[in-house]
Every structure is written in structure tokens, then in C-alpha cells.
């Protein structure tokens, strides 16, 4: 078990991603931030705050529950409570930045993109993640990455955020060979 990112690293990663977003999309009036539950929405909120202090503009914020868009409804014992999706603005012609904690197989992001286009036609969809741990199963890549981490497929990357877990931290739990 090892700590990949401490609280300070998480804070710096979010600030850096915010700067990169502003660099790439200089017109904040076209931007929107959408976090994927249940950790991406917390990161999205922090990213919105960082963008406010950098660009001085309020960027609309939404959150997405992708449960209904998953491709494995009966394959796993799933948590059946669907949380509220809340996108209180039109996504038409906006650059929607999807935010998630960990990018792994890419299936969550595929589901999230399907969900976003059900709300309208964004000008573009970008992806920001705190951690990219590799092992993609779909042709998806992140535009903004806090940290790239080499992992084995069976490893567990645990993201903790103060709002939900009491402290900020990213931990790698390696699978113990049997």
C-alpha cells in the first residue's frame, strides 16, 4: 500500500489542470464543468473554484450519475440507487469538461459521453482526471491529467477527498499475488 498523492499534491494537480483548461479554452463563457459521481463531482466543484480565481468568471457546474448508461447492468452486483443528475444549463455549443477521479478502462467515460449528448449537442467534450492508471479497454484518452500512474490491472487506486472521506489522498493498493 503506498500513497501516490498527498493532500498538497491533489491541490496542486487541480490548480494545474485549471490553468491548462484556461490556456486551451481562453473564452470561459463557452466552458462548463460536469463531474461524474461520486468523486468527480467533488473534483469538479474544486475545479470550478480554481477557474473562478484564475479566470475571474463563473463557469456553470453540473454533476452526472452514469448508472443508467453502464454496459454491465446485470453483470455485477451493482449499487442500485441512482443519484440525481443535475445539469442546470444548456450544453448546446459549450465546451463540456467531464471530470472524474480515476481513468481506467474508459467505460465510465464512454457512458458519461452518452449521457451528456442526451442533454444536447456540446461544441466539444474534454476529459479531466486526477489519476490516469492505464489499461484502457476503449479508445479514450484524457485531455487534462493530474498524475499518470503505472498500475497492474488488479491493483486498486483509492481516491479520498475531504468532502466525502475526511481527507485528500490517493492511495495504490497492490494486489497481493495469491
Amino acid at each position, binding site marked *: 500500500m503506498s500513497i501516490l498523492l498527498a493532500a498538497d499534491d491533489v491541490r496542486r494537480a487541480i490548480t494545474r489542470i485549471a490553468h491548462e483548461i484556461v490556456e486551451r479554452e481562453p473564452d470561459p463563457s463557452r466552458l462548463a464543468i460536469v463531474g461524474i459521481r*461520486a468523486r468527480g463531482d467533488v473534483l469538479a466543484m474544486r475545479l470550478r473554484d480554481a477557474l473562478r480565481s484564475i479566470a475571474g468568471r463563473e463557469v456553470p457546474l453540473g454533476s452526472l450519475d452514469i448508472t*443508467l448508461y453502464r454496459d454491465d447492468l446485470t453483470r455485477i452486483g451493482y449499487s442500485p440507487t441512482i443519484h*440525481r443528475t443535475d445539469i442546470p444549463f444548456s450544453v448546446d455549443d459549450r465546451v463540456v469538461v467531464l471530470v472524474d477521479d480515476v481513468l481506467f478502462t474508459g467505460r465510465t467515460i464512454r457512458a458519461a459521453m452518452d449521457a451528456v449528448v442526451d*442533454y444536447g449537442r456540446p461544441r466539444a467534450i474534454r476529459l479531466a482526471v486526477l489519476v490516469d492508471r492505464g489499461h484502457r479497454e476503449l479508445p479514450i484518452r484524457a485531455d487534462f491529467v493530474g498524475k499518470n500512474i503505472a498500475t497492474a490491472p488488479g491493483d486498486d487506486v483509492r481516491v479520498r477527498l475531504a468532502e466525502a472521506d475526511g481527507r485528500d489522498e490517493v492511495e495504490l493498493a497492490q494486489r497481493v499475488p495469491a
Partner: protein
Amino acid sequence: MTGRTGAAAPARAGETALPTWTRRHVLSTEDWSRGEIELVLENTVAMREILSRPVRRAPPLRGRTVVLFFAEASTRTRVSFELAAKALSADVVNISAAGSSVEKGETLLDTVRTLEALGGDIIVMRHGASGAPYFVADRTSAAVINAGDGWHAHPTQGLLDAYTLRDALGDLAGKRVVIVGDVLHSRVARSDIHTLVPLGAEVTLSGPPTLMPLAWRCGAVPRGVSYEPDLDRALDGADAVIALRLQRERAESGLLPSLREYARVWGLTEARVGRMRPGAPVMHPGPMNEGIEIEAAVAHGARSLIETQVTNGVAVRMALLYLLAGQP
């Protein structure tokens, strides 16, 4: 990746842990735990959001077939289930008794075998015989949802009424809900009781003694339920009222002197609903007999949630279809 790949997301502050869904059928809420009811209501919130989007459709039931088997007349419940199934991208097959081989004398069991052979994953059924959905559920591998069986149960109506009331009143603990009308023949009343009482509401029944179950009329009422024959007294200070549909044939069968008298003694008028708490809502499962159990001015007035019930009904049925589809 953590979360979303199997491990349940950790509960947020202020969020009570809901149980895991394990039911294969929805036949009655009579034996449901409060947690199971809450789970359905919680998912209904998310389904309402889908219905408010520009594209009112999400994909979780893609490739599944929902068979609507209505052996008894119904428009709004059938259409509600159809919209719910389609909003979750299921294929929908409609079978009604009229015009099907049921009219040619096919038995219920043969009909069910046929429905299953057609590839139905979920059978939504309405039947005039109490208990018919249980008979079917025991003999099919499909999931069965009871859309009303005889006088017995109409669980999706109970759940949508609970959702609508909770949306309007907040926590139902200690809230007093009046149900007025033909309780004896009403599966809606029974399912409302079996959903509202576990959520903490107190149900006051009102209506003619001839249209009350004998034991309830004599005081042997279920927990959380009371009977007050005087509607004005029942409504005094109540938090909500649900009027039941009066079948016109009840007057012909001698249980009522006349429809006119029923309207005068048991009909919801503006003066009567004014006895409830300010703004207390008025509901009706539909279809209404305006001028008999409810005055037009009340049915379409500021307190009426009757149209909201219809919208909520689609969302509740989506939540149930989704939960059942997730069962292996």
C-alpha cells in the same frame, strides 16, 4: 478504478443506507420493508430528472422486452407503463384481453407461456382476479409487475401516491392522509395503506359503511389506520386527501341509495377540502367521476396534484422496471 466497479459508493453525509434490491417481482407492497419503499422512491427522483430532459430516454433496458398484458380495461396505467418502458429503451409488446386469444378461451397459464415464448423479460399484468399475478409469477422465469389485480393490490399506484405525497409534504411521519370512498372494492386504497403506513403516515378512511371492509368498519383496523364515517370530521386538520373512484354499478347493486346522495355526503367539495390544513393537497387515482366523488373545481383547483400523480406514475414505474431488470 475504485467505486462504480462493484463496491457500493460510500454514503454521503445525511444519506441513510438503503437496502440492496433482491425482489424478482412486484406483486404487492404489503410485505415490503420501509427501506425497499424508500429505495424505489429515491430512484424515482432520478427518473423524474430523465423525464424533464430534452431527450426523455436513457438506455439501461436496451434489448429487453416488456410485455404489457392487460386483461382488464385500462388506459392510463397501461400508457404509463408503456412510456416508462420506452423511456428506458425497452421494447414493448401490448396484449389486451379483447382481441387476443384470451377471448377464445385460452387459459391464463397458456397465455403466460406464450408471452414468455415471445421473449418477455418483464410481464406487466392487470387482471380482474385477485392473486392472478402471483399465479403467473410462480410459473414464469420473467419478472412480474402487478398493475392491479381484482380488489387486492395496485402496488405502483401506492408507490406513486407515496412519492407524490412526500414530494408535497416532506417526511410523512405523523402526517394524516384521508382516503375517502369505496375502500371495500379498492385495490388502490389497500396499496396506499401498505405504502403510506410504513413511511410513518396515519391513514384515516372515510366513506359509506357499506363500502368498508366489515372488520375495519367494526374497529379491527390495521396498524396506522382508522375509520371515520363523517367525512367533515375526517378532513378536519388533515394533511392530504385521496378520493377513490366510485364505480357507478355500486348504486345499482344496492350498496348506495343513489349517486346523488353519495356526492352530497362523500363528495369532495371546496368547502370540505377547506377543512384540511392550508394548502393540503387533493389526489385521485383516476379516472375521475367529476361531480360524484370530486367537484370539478376541486379536481382542477390549486390543491389538486392529480396531474402530478400521472407524471410521477411514469417515473415510479421506470424505477421499478430498472430495479427488476438488474436482477440476474
